[in-house]
């Protein structure tokens, strides 16, 4: 739709594949090295997030006043320390956990919300469909950052609210995709067949149509996920997202900005982590899209 910033990933390079349905496929191409690296990075990040308590050598608020602004490579503080002598590596590890937790929670929320609304629109049509589409138009008309800024500062800030807010990012894309897919699936034999057998609408949608549209929705998730990471870190960078003493990748960059001239490592470590993570998820998403869903190409 013209109202939505279509992700570049949804545009296609149709020269590369588009096997006609049922055509013979001799062998799958090997998984490219970049995808292996991206996958490895994502797995590493998830492990870091899960094991943050074990991995972090210090507490995120533990001060080491004799080693303030220690450069990277200092024994005991391999990524250096900040102005209060807090260990950058420990803060980075905990920030990865917080940022991934928010992004993952929000990505799931957005997918569930959007898919449900899309299915509702497809099922009821009429007024419900118009309302969903109108809300989607509204979401697309207002830049998400502006909307988030207004909601956040005016409702105060808690982690739960923040995750819910981030969960609004991209819902309208799932809703449009889910609605379109559900409409076309409803016309196919299998949906009509289970309906004739007496299945409830919920059963038709969630047990039959959802599995048949899952690959497209999963691919959309890999497109929305990096956007959520970037939005979260941007808001936290502005001081309006994750609040101290809690730390996230974005708020670390925001804090490090004050020490750009004297201690750039405070800002570089989380910045590089953000870049590599969004890059890795995008690469994985591109590859998954080629594999799972040629229609999105």
């Amino acid at each position, binding site marked *: *739709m*013209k*109202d939505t*910033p*279509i992700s*570049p990933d949804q*545009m*296609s*390079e*149709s*020269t590369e594949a588009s096997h006609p349905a049922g055509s013979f496929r001799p062998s799958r191409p090997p998984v490219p090295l970049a995808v292996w690296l991206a996958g490895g990075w994502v797995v590493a990040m998830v492990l870091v997030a899960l094991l943050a308590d074990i991995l972090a050598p210090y507490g995120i608020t533990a001060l080491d006043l004799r080693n303030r602004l220690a450069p990277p490579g200092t024994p005991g503080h391999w990524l250096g320390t900040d102005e209060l002598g807090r260990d950058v590596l420990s803060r980075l590890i905990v920030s990865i956990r917080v940022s991934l937790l928010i992004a993952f929670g929000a990505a799931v929320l957005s997918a569930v919300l959007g898919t449900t609304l899309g299915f509702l629109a497809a099922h009821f049509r009429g007024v419900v469909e118009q309302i969903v*589409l*109108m809300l989607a*138009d*509204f979401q697309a*008309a*207002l*830049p998400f*950052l*502006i*909307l988030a*800024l*207004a*909601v*956040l*500062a*005016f*409702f*105060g800030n808690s982690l739960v609210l923040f995750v819910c807010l981030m969960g609004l990012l991209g819902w309208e894309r799932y809703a*449009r995709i889910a609605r379109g897919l559900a409409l076309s699936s409803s016309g196919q034999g299998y949906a009509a067949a289970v309906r004739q057998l007496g299945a409830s609408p919920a059963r038709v949608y969630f047990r039959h149509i959802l599995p048949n549209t899952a690959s497209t929705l999963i691919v959309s998730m890999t497109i929305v996920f*990096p956007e959520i990471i*970037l939005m979260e*870190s*941007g808001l936290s*960078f*502005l001081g*309006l997202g994750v609040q101290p003493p809690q730390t996230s990748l*974005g708020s670390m*960059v*925001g804090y490090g*900005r004050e020490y*750009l*001239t004297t201690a*750039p490592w405070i*800002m570089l470590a989380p*910045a590089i982590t*953000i*870049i590599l993570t*969004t*890059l890795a998820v*995008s690469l994985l998403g591109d590859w998954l899209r080629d594999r799972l869903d040629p229609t999105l190409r």
Partner: protein
Amino acid sequence: MLRFLSLRLGRAALTIVLVVTFAFVVLRLSGDPAMLIMGAEASPEAIAAFRASWGLDEPIWVQYFAYFGALAQGDLGMSMRDGRPALDMVLDRVPATLALTVPALLIKIGLGIPAGIYAALHRDSAIDRAVMVLAIAGFTVPSFVLSLLLVLLFAVKLGWLPSGGNQTLLHAVLPVLTLGIGGAAILARFTRSAMLEVLNQPYVRTASAKGVPWRRVVVGHVLPNAMIPTVTIIGFMVGNLIAGAVVVESVFSWPGIGRMLVTAVANRDLAVVQTILLLVAATMVAANLIVDLLYGVLDPRLRQAPAARGGH
């Protein structure tokens, strides 16, 4: 065509009403601005007087309709902090923001589209690969990181450019570059995809097979068709001229709309926030309308049955 136009205009108006409603509901229901502005120690009488003078003691729906009524007369309320009309305050900042976003838009179009076209026409060449790598970087490097990296390089290490403020023309260079580079990368990737899509169409094969010179195939057949999706993205960028620099303005202490919004949100200056929200939404809706009209110019097929494309 007239039906299509009125349909689009109606939807645009509806979107604006929704934005205003959203802003009003969120901002009014979220907390008590009187307590915040006056402070916790203010006497109950002072708070009551403050509420009465701002209309905050009326029922919420009265406030809502009063707001719409005032809006219709171009009155967007007074800033609770400065006591000045919010619209004046916001409009004062528009030129500063446009001074960043318009040159940045020119950079995006001037770099992004040629790079995308070149990359698509020379697919898998070294330049194509370089464009793609840069385009992916443009998407994955957030603007606050890019701006800090540029400051680190050009202001701290090389000392060529100032790192913040708006005193001279030189102060605008880094923020404009930050905005322009990121957008150019995105536009290049889009243009390349759109070009490749069109290059693969049967009519392009037909044209070159019947002996039309390649240059004329590209100029006459490929470019016009590839421009349609690209125009959509440019329209989105135009719509973002007002709101697109929130982060960058904050990093570079640039006195534009974005920084004003961050401050107003932190101060709960309701009128200013609503005015900015409305201005941003209006810009976005207007840009979308223009894009819709441009489709008709770019694609003669759509002039025949414009309404068919407008639906979902």
